[in-house]
């Protein structure tokens, strides 16, 4: 337990690890026939690697890293469209820094900026609104991406722009939702998942009931978890306990932050501004029904797709992933990042080939970042 001193409460961590081990033995989990638990959220993936939780838990437990990093699943065609938008002379493109290095077919946003496009890295869509106020002769486009945690922020910003009559602000909407890809993974006969650790901050917005189908229709346990290492361990224990006692329920380990029914103001703003797209493309997973959001026609004046006649339904084409890239197989847990032929060769955080290497929440970057330290410790 050489990582235990990193825990805020090592004694508590040790106690939970022992209970996990007992429970895993009781279920009959072994390295040959492991219990496969998917953590959906990229923040959880990052924490699992940072604290070496995958090495600390009983060897019969395997973490499968889910598709919960919105930057990682952004399809290349959307990056291309975003680069093209940024290259228009009248446009200031405002984006979260995370999206800057995602590879596109021609270039990333970082390369586009180096080539002269006016791209500003912002912390919040509120910064993009302010940019629009200060630059009335320019078109400010915000690159809206993220799961349900981020969706309310762009929805509220669009509502604010509408109230102010701010005509030079729009959002290029790439918001996606968590439940549909989980359903797609559960429908995949190769996945063989035994349970889920659910995303904490997404659930703070949507509550825990959107996951009911996982327990009810698929008979799998899911436990919504916080971000401290102890939260994660406790959630794993709760999943195992459900398996051991033959239950499949939606449980909330993070109730101190996640209300059962989510945040009503956020949900109302999302419902007002967005509607589901018939389907949306996920890098590595393909098209998934009703997994993406678009801006409702009443807010078309703030929809960059409508304003610049781009995006879904306007000559969109699926762009093939780069040669030798195994992002899809990693993202669905079929192989580990180190099994990808490009890992550490054609693909590193400095020169990412696939998106899983771009963000610290991507499984490949996490393997790379903590793999060296771990090898030294072992």
């Amino acid at each position, binding site marked *: 337990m050489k990582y235990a001193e990193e825990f805020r409460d090592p004694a508590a961590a040790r106690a939970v690890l022992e209970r996990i081990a007992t429970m895993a033995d009781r279920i009959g989990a072994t390295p040959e026939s492991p219990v496969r638990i998917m953590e959906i959220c990229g923040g959880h993936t990052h924490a699992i690697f940072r604290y070496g939780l995958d090495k600390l838990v009983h060897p019969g437990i395997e973490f499968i890293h889910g598709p919960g990093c919105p930057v990682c699943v952004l399809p290349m065609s959307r990056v291309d469209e975003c680069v093209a938008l940024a290259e228009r002379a009248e446009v200031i493109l405002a984006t979260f820094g995370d999206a800057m290095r995602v590879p596109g077919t021609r270039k990333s946003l970082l390369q586009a900026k180096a080539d002269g496009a006016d791209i500003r890295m912002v912390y919040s869509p509120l910064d993009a609104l302010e940019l629009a106020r200060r630059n009335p002769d320019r078109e400010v486009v915000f690159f809206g991406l993220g799961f349900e945690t981020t969706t309310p922020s762009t929805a*509220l910003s669009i509502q604010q722009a509408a109230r102010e009559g701010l005509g030079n602000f729009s959002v290029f909407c790439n918001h996606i939702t968590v439940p549909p890809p989980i359903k797609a993974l559960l429908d995949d006969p190769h996945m063989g998942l035994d349970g889920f650790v659910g995303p904490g901050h997404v659930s703070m917005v949507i509550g825990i009931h959107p996951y009911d189908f996982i327990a009810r229709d698929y008979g799998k346990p899911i436990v919504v978890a916080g971000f*401290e290492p102890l939260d994660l361990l406790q959630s794993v224990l709760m999943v195992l306990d459900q398996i051991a006692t033959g239950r499949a329920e939606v449980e909330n380990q993070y109730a101190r932050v996640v209300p059962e029914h989510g945040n009503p103001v956020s949900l109302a703003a999302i419902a007002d501004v967005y509607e589901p797209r018939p389907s949306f493309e996920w890098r590595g997973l393909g098209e998934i029904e009703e997994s993406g959001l678009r801006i409702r026609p009443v807010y078309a004046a703030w929809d960059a797709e409508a304003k610049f006649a781009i995006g879904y339904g306007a000559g969109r084409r699926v762009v093939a992933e780069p040669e030798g890239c195994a992002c899809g197989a990693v993202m669905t847990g079929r192989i580990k990042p180190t099994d990808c032929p490009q890992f550490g060769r054609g693909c590193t955080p400095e020169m990412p080939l696939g998106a899983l290497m771009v963000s610290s929440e991507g499984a490949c970057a996490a393997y790379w970042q903590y793999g060296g330290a771990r090898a030294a410790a072992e």
Partner: protein
Amino acid sequence: MCLGIPGQIVAVTDEARLMAMAEVSGVRREVNVACIADGPPGDLVGKWALIHVGFAMAVIDEAEADATLRALRGLGEAQETLQAMEAGAAALEGRG
């Protein structure tokens, strides 16, 4: 980008737009409090909230704020968020 960061609401800056000043790890940043204001926004002053890309998303207690900040620091996410806030300020000035 996906994880919120705890901040303390220190003042209301624009009641009509539901904007408030929050202090996040010693850095001040204006945030939107629409999602947590179920009364006059002035009632929020002194409270802790999880702040996500400039929007306060949940009221939390001080112990939770403390624990969350510690976890975020461990992941390097707290530093990243503070850098992103600085980058956002720079972008408004045309420096970013």
